[in-house]
Every structure is written in structure tokens, then in C-alpha cells.
């Protein structure tokens, strides 16, 4: 990995928003300062809206609490989760930028094997700005990286690749395990630095983690809905996974790519496995129905935009998963509400921007 100086050259600083959900504090931003300071932040404050979340000096940001979300979306706010980091997707919706990077507030800067700080954002940007190769697996991983290329036998007709919609990063230290695995291996730490980025092949699903994730909002934004989780919902810790299955089906349909691998961040906090088990419990069983559903999901030729794909998918969710549990009927409806809200917010973007900023400024 190339060494990074303390003030790296920012790429896309006017085209990328960093979305951070928080319920505690934003102390972690101090460590990220050299890498994040030049970008605009969208803070989505979960939980008690009367609590004041202090943002470290020098960051340019907009902050939304539950009151703001309710005010901006009105009745459609029902699709945004409460008391779960799934609320972050509200940040995606109100962003005006082409790219989003989202990170959890317990994620810090990791070091590569040479001891240098990893500029995660820079790597995500590299991943998003270079093509993906979902139609044929390259055994040397991302062929567009320095020092790599397509291997012998890789069809030349496929070497241009497709646009990259999502860059899924990984975590050193506390790995993203489910509750049962956490209970069995409470001390396991991820210490293996795998120096690779690779495209997840077309037709393959994966468990997407929202802790260290970047995407091209213009290409896939409307499909990044993190579902109904947390307060009043029968399930938690499935928000990012749900989004991941939806976006993968849609990316496969639209010919877009999803990459996984570098960059690593340092995940510092292991959440309580017993609390997690309660949240995940239903999901563990439902997953067995959900996965075959997504594996078999096909979208029609008419689904030519992300929104159309998503609405079609929501109908299939209602029809095929609604029989598993009434939750999925609610979720399917919320998926539609989300798209309606997305289109509303993003089509009258100019007016809303001024409104929001004024309201946020006034609230401070």
C-alpha cells in the first residue's frame, strides 16, 4: 500500500457525502480528520432528538434528528427506522452528491502491514471510479489495480468491464460476525490483511455490511434502502444485508458491478452478543426463505431504472415473502414509500435544500 501523508489530496471532495448514523457521539471523527475534513458530512442522529450531538470543530456538515426526519418526510417518515443504524439511509436520500461513503461511529483508521494509516475513503473512490468485472472471474482479482491485470484466458471482449455501483470494505479487529458466532468465538479478531479488491460475480449474493461502504448514488442510490429495523420491528441487524441483497439483484439486472475487499477500517467495538441474538433471532430463520427468494428473483425487461427495479422487487417481496411473516408485507410497503419519498425529495431537490439547511441552522 502506498504511504499516505498526513494531508492526502482529496478526490471528489465536492461530489461525495459521508453519511454517519450516530446515537452516542462523534469522537471517532477526530481520528479521521485528515481524511474526512474536506468532505461534507451528513449526520443522522438516531434515538432521542433532544440530545445534542457535538460535531468536532472544522467539519462541514448537516445533521438530522428524528424530528427533522418526521418534518421533512411527513407520513412517509414511517419507512425510516428508529433506534437502529438503518436510519442512515435517510442521509442517502437527502444527499445531493454523486457518491456516498457511510461509516459507523465505532470504526477507526486501520494500519496496513507496513504500518501506514489506511486512507479508506481514497481506496473506496478508486474502487468506484474503476470498472467492475462481474461476467468472468479474474484470478488476479481487480485487474485495474496497479501491478495487476487480466490473466491469460480472460476474454478480451469483457475487459472493458462495467460501471462500479458499490464498494464494500472490510474490517480488522472485531469481525462482522452474527450473534451465534460471536458467542462461540468471543475472542476472535480479524488480523488477516487481504490485499485484494474483487468484483462479486453476477448471480452471486453476498452479506453486505454497512460499516464501511461506499456507492455511486446516481447509479444505485434508490435501492440502498436499509429496511424496517429497530423500535417496533421484529428484527434488527438485517438492514444492510437486506439492502445488499436488493442492490445485488438490481445491479446484476442493470449490468452494474459490486466490489468487495479493500479498504480495511479498524472496528473497535464488539456489540453485546446476547442483545444481538435477540435482534437477529427471527432473521436467522427468515434468512432461509429470504435467500432462495433473492437467488430466484428476476426483474422484467421493463425495469430499466433503479426505481422501477425496486418497485418490482417490492411486489415480489410482498407476494412471496409476505407468506413467511406479515413483517414482509409491511416491509414491501415501506420499500414503496421509500421510493416515493426518494423521488419527491430528489425531484424538488433545490427547494428542499434551502429549507433543510435553514431549519437545521435554526435548530442549532
Amino acid at each position, binding site marked *: 500500500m502506498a504511504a499516505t501523508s498526513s494531508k492526502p489530496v482529496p478526490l471528489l471532495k465536492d461530489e461525495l457525502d459521508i453519511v454517519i448514523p450516530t446515537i452516542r457521539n462523534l469522537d471517532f471523527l477526530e481520528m479521521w480528520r485528515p481524511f474526512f475534513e474536506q468532505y461534507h458530512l451528513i449526520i443522522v442522529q438516531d434515538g432521542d432528538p433532544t440530545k445534542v450531538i457535538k460535531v468536532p470543530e472544522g467539519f462541514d456538515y448537516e445533521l438530522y434528528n428524528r424530528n427533522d426526519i418526521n418534518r421533512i418526510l411527513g407520513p412517509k417518515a414511517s419507512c425510516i427506522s428508529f433506534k437502529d443504524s438503518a436510519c442512515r439511509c435517510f442521509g442517502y436520500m437527502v444527499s445531493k452528491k454523486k457518491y456516498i461513503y457511510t461509516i459507523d461511529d465505532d470504526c477507526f483508521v486501520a494500519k496496513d502491514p507496513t504500518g501506514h494509516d489506511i486512507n479508506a475513503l481514497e481506496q473506496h473512490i478508486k474502487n468506484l471510479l474503476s470498472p467492475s468485472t462481474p461476467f468472468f472471474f479474474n*484470478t488476479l482479482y481487480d485487474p485495474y489495480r496497479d*501491478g495487476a491485470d*487480466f490473466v491469460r484466458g480472460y476474454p478480451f471482449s469483457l475487459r472493458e468491464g462495467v460501471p462500479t455501483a458499490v464498494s464494500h470494505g472490510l474490517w480488522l479487529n472485531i469481525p462482522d460476525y452474527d450473534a451465534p458466532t460471536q458467542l462461540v468465538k468471543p475472542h476472535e479478531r480479524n488480523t488477516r490483511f*487481504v490485499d485484494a479488491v474483487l468484483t*462479486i460475480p453476477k448471480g452471486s449474493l453476498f452479506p453486505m*455490511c454497512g460499516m464501511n461502504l461506499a456507492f455511486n448514488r446516481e447509479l444505485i442510490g434508490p435501492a440502498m434502502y436499509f429496511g424496517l429495523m429497530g423500535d417496533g420491528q421484529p428484527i434488527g441487524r438485517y438492514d444492510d444485508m437486506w439492502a445488499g441483497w436488493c442492490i445485488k439483484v438490481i445491479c446484476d439486472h442493470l449490468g452494474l458491478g459490486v466490489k468487495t475487499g479493500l479498504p480495511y477500517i479498524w472496528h473497535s467495538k464488539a456489540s453485546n452478543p446476547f442483545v444481538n441474538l435477540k435482534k437477529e433471532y427471527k432473521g436467522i430463520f427468515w434468512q432461509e426463505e429470504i435467500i432462495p427468494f433473492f437467488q430466484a428473483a428476476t426483474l422484467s425487461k421493463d425495469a430499466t431504472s433503479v426505481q422501477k427495479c425496486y418497485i418490482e422487487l417490492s411486489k415480489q417481496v410482498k407476494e412471496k415473502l409476505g407468506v413467511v411473516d406479515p413483517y414482509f408485507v409491511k416491509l414491501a410497503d415501506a420499500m414503496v414509500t421509500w421510493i416515493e419519498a426518494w423521488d419527491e425529495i430528489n425531484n424538488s431537490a433545490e427547494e428542499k435544500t434551502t429549507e433543510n439547511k435553514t431549519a437545521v441552522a435554526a435548530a442549532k
Partner: protein
Amino acid sequence: MSQVIINDNEVDIVIGALHSDLTNFMTEWKPVFSRFHLIIVKDPDLKEDLKIPEGFSADVYTKSEIERVVGSSTAIRFSGYACRYFGFLVSKKKYVVCIDDDCVPAKDDAGILVDAVAQHIVNLKTPATPFFFNTLYDPFRKGADFVRGYPFSLRNGVDCALSCGLWLNLADLDAPTQALKPSQRNSRYVDAVLTVPVRAMLPVSGINIAFNRELVGPALVPALVLAGEGKLRWETVEDIWCGLCVKAICDHLSLGVKSGLPYVSRAERGNAIESLKKEWKGVKLMEEVVPFFQSVRLPQSATTTEDCVIEMAKAVKEQLGKVDPMFSQAAAAMEEWVKLWKSVGSA
């Protein structure tokens, strides 16, 4: 995950000798190879006698032995890199590891010699996970596991049939790529093994592979051997074709294919630009096969590897035969191979 035990008697190391003097090659590999049985197959076109150092348990097969076993009238040509397949045919072991004779052991980032054979066997003996991608790569490796969201019903995995290793120094790039980047060398040691997902195609390089012969032996066929084929990897596609077929068959039989570790270090040889001068038949042929492999589906009735190879051959003849006669020849070779395998391979 419990320790994988490697039984010496389960492994054959097959070496295709395209160079007569194997002294350096075998000396470098001695720490890794010496406990195993070796099958050395001499390229029938090689005129000089083989020079093999002492200290190995090896059986050597030359042109006359090959002809004695398979007969002279055959659609299968064992010349050049294809000679290795003869070794696969006559092996009696469960696992076969095959490394090109211009490779030596690699060193990892800590400077430790990589035991490529041990890593291949570990890959083959631990389950593969083709039905769902694990973002922490091989979940059965020490220090790793399945991530949150990985369905529990898929965590047993399936048997791994093929292990595809990688190369430091001279990566397996094609000639145009290497010619454009003459000084590019692969120095990136990626510490991962991963299962290539079901229905994903990949270019399997024959330079550094291992397979479970009991599971997929008959599926590794030297079917697409080019007429003007040379003695450099840049001028061949036999392994690429073979790999596409094996992957399709593994997908059908719910077997796994892994890629990643181990690395070997591949020596400098040949000149990419020189190889460019040869006719690019192989590259052109590969372009034709992508839609075929993307859509090929074997019938439910094909439940053994041999059946799958026959069905693959039928499909190749029907759908690709009209594209180029080379494919009809490949199909014929695949059918012949199954017969050969039944008579020789299972003896």
C-alpha cells in the same frame, strides 16, 4: 476448524517436463516434494533425455510409454503442456498436484517458503462455499469464519474438487498484456483462498493447480490443443478450456472450485513479443466460447463426472462445432478421454 492431516499416500505430484534438465526445479522443490510420489511425464516432442536428481520417489513416462498405454490412434495429443494429462490418467491417488517446470517455491511476505502442496491439499480437504459469497473469504481458515448474514443452511459447504493457485514474479498474463507491460511483475501476495461462486466462469491456469482425482479426474481433458501450439504458456489455451469445462461440471454436480493461495514463483522465460507473432487462434477461440459457457446446462440425468464430460462434449459439438472445427475436435477428444479414463484411469 480442525487441523487438516495430509497423508503422503493420498497425493501424486504430476510434472510435465518441457525442459530436459529438471535438476534446478526439483532441487528447489525438494523440501516440499520429497515426501510424495512424483509422476514425471516427458513432453513427447522433447528429444533430450531427462535429468532428474536423486532423492525422489518418481515414475517417469516418456513418449513410448504414453503410446503403449493409450495407443497411437487417438484424438488426444499429449504434446507440450498437454503431456501432464497423461500423468493425471495414470495416477492412482486421490489428490493430484500439478506445477509447471519453470516454477519454484514462493516466499510469503514474512519470507517463509510457501509449501504449495500442503496449501493445495488443505484447500481440497476443506469445504468450498459456492452458493453464497463470504466476504471474509475462506471461512474455514484459522482466524476467519462466516460473516453475519451468511445463511446457516449453507455453512456446511460442499466438497472442493479443484484448487487454483497463483504466481508471483511472472504472473500468467497473456502475451499482448505482457508485451505492453514488459517490466510488470506480480509482487502482491494476497493472503486469501476463496470459493469461485457457482455459475461464475474463470480462467483456470494450469501452471499451479490441484484437484481431487476421485471427484473430477475425468473432467480434466486435454481437448483444445492448438495446431501451432508452442512450448510457452502464452501460446496455449488447453488449460483455459479444460478449466471452463471443469467449472461447468462442478457447478452441475455441486462441487467447489477454489482460487487464491498457494503462490508459486514463476521464472522468466520467453519473450512475449515473440509469442505475439504466432497466430492468435487461441485468443479468438476463447471469444467464441463465453456465451456457450454462460448458458450451458447439463441434464439432470448426468450424475457422474464421466456422464457430465460426455454431455459437455455433446453440447460443444452441437453448439460450437459450427463456429470452428477445432471445437468438434475438442468434443471428440473429450469423448475419447472418457473411454480412456474408463479403461486406464480406473484400472
